[in-house]
């Protein structure tokens, strides 16, 4: 089958290329339909219990999942007529923006307040008119600071900041609305500074940035690789072929993804980069072809021989890579599943093209041009080959030292891995000095916290939340949670009832407490339902007073912060049991924690699964348990070292890092397979163990080192990206490439040298007896020429 495909590609190269181009075009026309999705909620399926509960809970309390926070800071204090005038004007403009849920925008001019003067109650907007006289300003300041529910929400403790909370429709684009808000701000000229924060801004800005960065860095990475390849092969044809394979596989898999109507998520936006890293077959094939051609001096048979020799490692590496990524589909996280499946699909596309596009191109190359090329090849390989020879000698002759050094590194790496902190924080996906991160930091300094979580108190009976002891319990729990450094402001029905009790008692601070009877609470709630916006009350207690909602504002988007909150709630409820009432977490911060855990375990699970899968694939292909195990070692070594390093530098084990585990597996295994395969072939022809090993380190080794160097270079470009996940991916792919190539070339020969019996074990690979190869420059190799 394979032979026939290759045969056809050589016989009818133009037809083959045209057919591939047509298929690629068919996938390509899907690309313009691309849409993005950066909502972390969509990480989990709509039917997942967390999402279902969260949606229900938002409906009960009339909460909005997407809230933009506009911080307005004036270092000289915001409580002056000019700044307040601006707040009023900006609020008025914001209410007119499409997609803003105007009725629930919270600002000085839209928030309600109930206050007491003598026997009279005033229910009105916090700021009906902008206060101008010193007396009016003083009264306004008093109204703000007397109300604990407003401090750190609408006014910072030091008076330098206020905020406008802007809920937006679920279907609205946070970044577009943020841009409209920026346009409103731009018309104001004053000393105030403005900061936009909140989940929708981060998410949608990230979504837009993601495409911008990918559109910028994919071509740059491609260009760098292009130049490096050109330097190595001195042939536009070779480089063009590699680029064509990479581009075609990207177009196939992205086209399929978009064509199926799936949105592009942060994960799937990285598919092109991953496929560029995987499409290394071309390099290996050409590497072999350029050795093979001078030996046969006949193009057709050189191509056939090349394809026969590389077929087994190419198929095996692609299948293991595809299997590794496809195993991600076993997890719960939808974008991870999509990502895994489409990288796997792209990998299979690469495999197909290795046996069609690549031989077709080789068949079209002119023989005289090839000869000229090869001359250049010879001249350029000096230093690499010398370096590889010394590396090989160190591995073979110093195998004990090499192994000992490796063991020490592994021990260190394992120690590093124990230091890893599993965490995810979307805000840190932006660089430290980016506008978004600065806004988040300043708002967290001045106000109650930008990350929202909810803690729902659920009672067995209706009207439970009217009971004074339940309200006092909520108060106690809040005070306890506020002891955590990550927790900023907390707000519950208890705060509201205390506030109204004080107001009803002529603003006497002694009545800032929960009243003693159920009826009093119920009647206060009725009063509040008349005096304030319905949403002020409904967001804290449900219709039947059976459930109450504690708002938690966290000072960080760290998933671990929410974990700490939940532990604290668990501890508090154990030491202070409240029969008939239980607490359930919800909200975006909780959501982030859930998917963070799910992503991690999904990844670990998928990673272990693909580890097992890859192992069995290798064992099956090598038809040897021992070879499978040996080829596995550089793999494990690389992965341990990389993650040990992650632990030592204190980088959080977050989504981008966890995704890389599977890629590192797929990349590292490639080198080992190429090495083992080629060594086995060689050893059958040249039964001198050390010589065969050295030959393998030098000749296929050169392909490995080139491959690694090339991609390390290409990916290192991404270090200059503006989004940290891309920086992480760029740096880590480069590190994985270099480390696994060195690990392969150092540890495989050392292992084989250490256990020579390994080499002698029968390894009937799927290749027929091989045509021999000629002398390798620098390596004495008098092997006889086999004939076909």
């Amino acid at each position, binding site marked *: 089958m394979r032979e026939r495909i290759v045969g056809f590609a050589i016989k009818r190269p133009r037809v083959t290329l045209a057919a591939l181009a047509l298929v690629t075009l068919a996938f390509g026309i899907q690309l313009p339909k691309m849409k993005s999705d950066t909502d972390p909620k969509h990480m989990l399926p709509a039917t997942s219990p967390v999402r279902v509960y969260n949606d229900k809970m938002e409906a009960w309390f009339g909460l909005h999942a997407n809230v933009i926070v506009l911080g307005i800071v004036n270092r000289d204090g915001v409580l002056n007529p000019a700044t307040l005038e601006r707040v009023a004007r900006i609020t008025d403009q914001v209410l007119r923006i499409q997609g803003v849920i105007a009725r629930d925008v919270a600002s000085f001019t839209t928030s309600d307040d109930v206050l007491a003067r003598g*026997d009279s*109650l005033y229910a009105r907007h916090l700021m009906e008119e902008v206060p101008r006289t010193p007396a009016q300003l003083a009264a306004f300041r008093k109204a703000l600071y007397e109300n604990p529910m407003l401090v750190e929400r609408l006014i910072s403790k030091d008076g330098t900041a206020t905020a406008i909370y802007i809920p937006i429709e679920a279907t609205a684009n946070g970044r577009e609305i943020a841009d409209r808000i920026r346009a409103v701000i731009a018309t104001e000229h004053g000393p105030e500074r403005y900061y936009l924060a909140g989940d929708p801004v981060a998410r949608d800005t990230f979504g837009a940035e993601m495409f911008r960065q990918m559109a910028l860095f994919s071509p740059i990475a491609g260009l760098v690789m292009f130049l490096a390849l050109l330097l190595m092969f001195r042939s536009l044809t070779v480089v063009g072929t590699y680029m064509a394979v990479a581009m075609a596989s990207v177009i196939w898999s992205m086209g399929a993804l978009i064509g199926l109507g799936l949105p592009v998520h942060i994960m799937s936006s990285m598919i092109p980069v991953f496929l560029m890293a995987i499409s290394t077959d071309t390099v290996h094939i050409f590497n072999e072809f350029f050795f093979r051609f001078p030996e046969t001096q006949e193009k057709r048979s050189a191509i056939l021989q090349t394809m026969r020799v590389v077929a087994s490692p190419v198929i095996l590496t692609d299948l293991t890579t595809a299997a590794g990524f496809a195993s991600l589909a076993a997890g719960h996280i939808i974008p991870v599943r999509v990502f895994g499946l489409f990288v796997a699909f792209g990998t299979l596309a690469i495999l197909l093209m290795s046996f069609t596009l690549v031989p077709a191109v080789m068949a079209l190359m002119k023989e005289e041009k090839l000869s000229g090329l090869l001359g250049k090849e010879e001249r350029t390989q000096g230093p690499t080959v010398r370096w590889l020879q010394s590396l090989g000698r160190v591995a073979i002759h110093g195998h004990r030292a090499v192994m000992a050094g490796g063991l020490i590194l592994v021990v260190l790496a394992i120690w590093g891995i124990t230091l890893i902190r599993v965490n995810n924080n979307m805000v840190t996906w932006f660089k430290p000095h980016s506008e978004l991160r600065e806004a988040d930091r300043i708002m967290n300094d001045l106000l109650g916290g930008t990350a929202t979580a909810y803690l729902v108190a659920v009672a067995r009976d209706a009207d439970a939340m009217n009971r004074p002891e339940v309200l006092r319990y909520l108060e106690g729990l809040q005070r306890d949670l506020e002891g955590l450094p990550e927790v900023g402001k907390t707000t519950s029905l208890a705060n509201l009832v205390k506030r109204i009790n004080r107001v009803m008692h002529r603003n006497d601070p002694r009545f800032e407490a929960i009243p003693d*009877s159920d009826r009093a609470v119920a009647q206060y709630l009725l*009063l509040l*339902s*008349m005096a304030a916006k319905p949403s002020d009350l*409904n967001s804290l207690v449900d*219709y039947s007073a059976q459930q109450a909602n504690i708002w938690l504002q966290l000072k960080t988007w760290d998933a671990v912060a929410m974990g700490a909150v939940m532990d604290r709630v668990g501890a508090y409820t154990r030491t202070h049991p409240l029969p008939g009432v239980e607490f359930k977490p919800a909200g975006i911060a909780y959501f982030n924690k859930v998917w963070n855990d799910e992503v991690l375990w999904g990844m670990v699970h998928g990673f272990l699964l693909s580890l097992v899968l890859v192992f069995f694939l290798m064992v099956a292909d090598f038809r040897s348990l021992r070879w499978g195990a040996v080829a596995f070692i550089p793999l494990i070594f690389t992965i341990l070292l990389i993650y040990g390093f992650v632990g030592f530098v204190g980088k959080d084990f977050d989504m981008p890092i966890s995704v890389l585990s599977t890629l590192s597996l797929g990349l590292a295994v490639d080198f080992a397979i190429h090495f083992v395969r080629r060594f086995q072939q060689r050893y059958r022809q040249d039964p001198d163990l050390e010589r065969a090993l050295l030959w393998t380190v030098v000749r296929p080794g050169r392909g490995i080192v080139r491959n690694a160097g090339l991609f390390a270079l290409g990916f290192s470009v991404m270090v200059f990206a503006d989004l940290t996940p891309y920086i992480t991916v760029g740096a880590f792919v480069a590190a994985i490439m270099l480390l696994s190539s060195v690990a392969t070339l150092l540890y495989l020969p050392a292992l084989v040298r250490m256990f020579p019996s390994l080499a002698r074990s029968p390894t009937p690979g799927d290749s027929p007896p091989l045509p021999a190869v000629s002398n390798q420059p620098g390596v004495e190799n008098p092997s006889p020429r086999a004939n076909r």
Partner: protein
Amino acid sequence: MTKRAAIAIAVVIAAALTPSPSGAVELSGLEIMTRVEQREIGKDERSQVTLTLITKEGQRRERKLLLQRQGKADRKKVLIHFLSPADVRGVGFLVWRHPGKDDDRWLFLPALNMVRRIAAADKRSSFVGSDFVYEDVAGRDVGQDTHTLLRSEALGGQDCYVVKSVPKDNRSAEFSSKLSWVRKDNFVVIQERYADKRGEDLKLFTVDRLEVIQGIPTVRKMTMRNLQTGHRSEVTYDQVQYNLGLKDEVFTERYLARPPA
């Protein structure tokens, strides 16, 4: 006499002098809305009101109240006492409207045995968590809006005027415009459609049941739905009685603090 009252009287006189009241001469928007405000509804009234709040998801909350009224339009006095649920039974609410100035409002909370005046700064706040705002209960002066007659059309088999009302002071109302369907035969508003400040649909008011009691066209059931949240409030009036001869002292703080047994 206030300016507004003078206008109202003038309009009524003008209407009475019009040869054919059934509409040979087209009424203006202001005339129509003034007739709505001034239509005959008896000297006083007492009824049992059931207010049901219904969320989008179908959760219901029901409250029963006793409503007593004296006078109409900007001289109206209203006393409301909650009858159920039990924990808010006896909570009272008293409103005095005054021509040309802010209303007086008082609240009584029996659990604390406390009467408080509520300064009527915001008429847009919700009435006990319902989709009705305070103004819908106490009334809104005709003079606060500019009224334009848009067209006549039939609604539910009744010939109606469709009047558009736009607040003169943008900040005085939660809506930017309101369409009212006013029955031509009895000047009862049977439907209203509110638009928010962006011009989008905000609320829809419908009269679901209208009966004539003691010769007075009386709304027995009405609904206000918030078209943006999906929340709605239904109000039914039972045991409606007019012209009972309620004494002035019923509408005082003393009576407010003495809820019906």
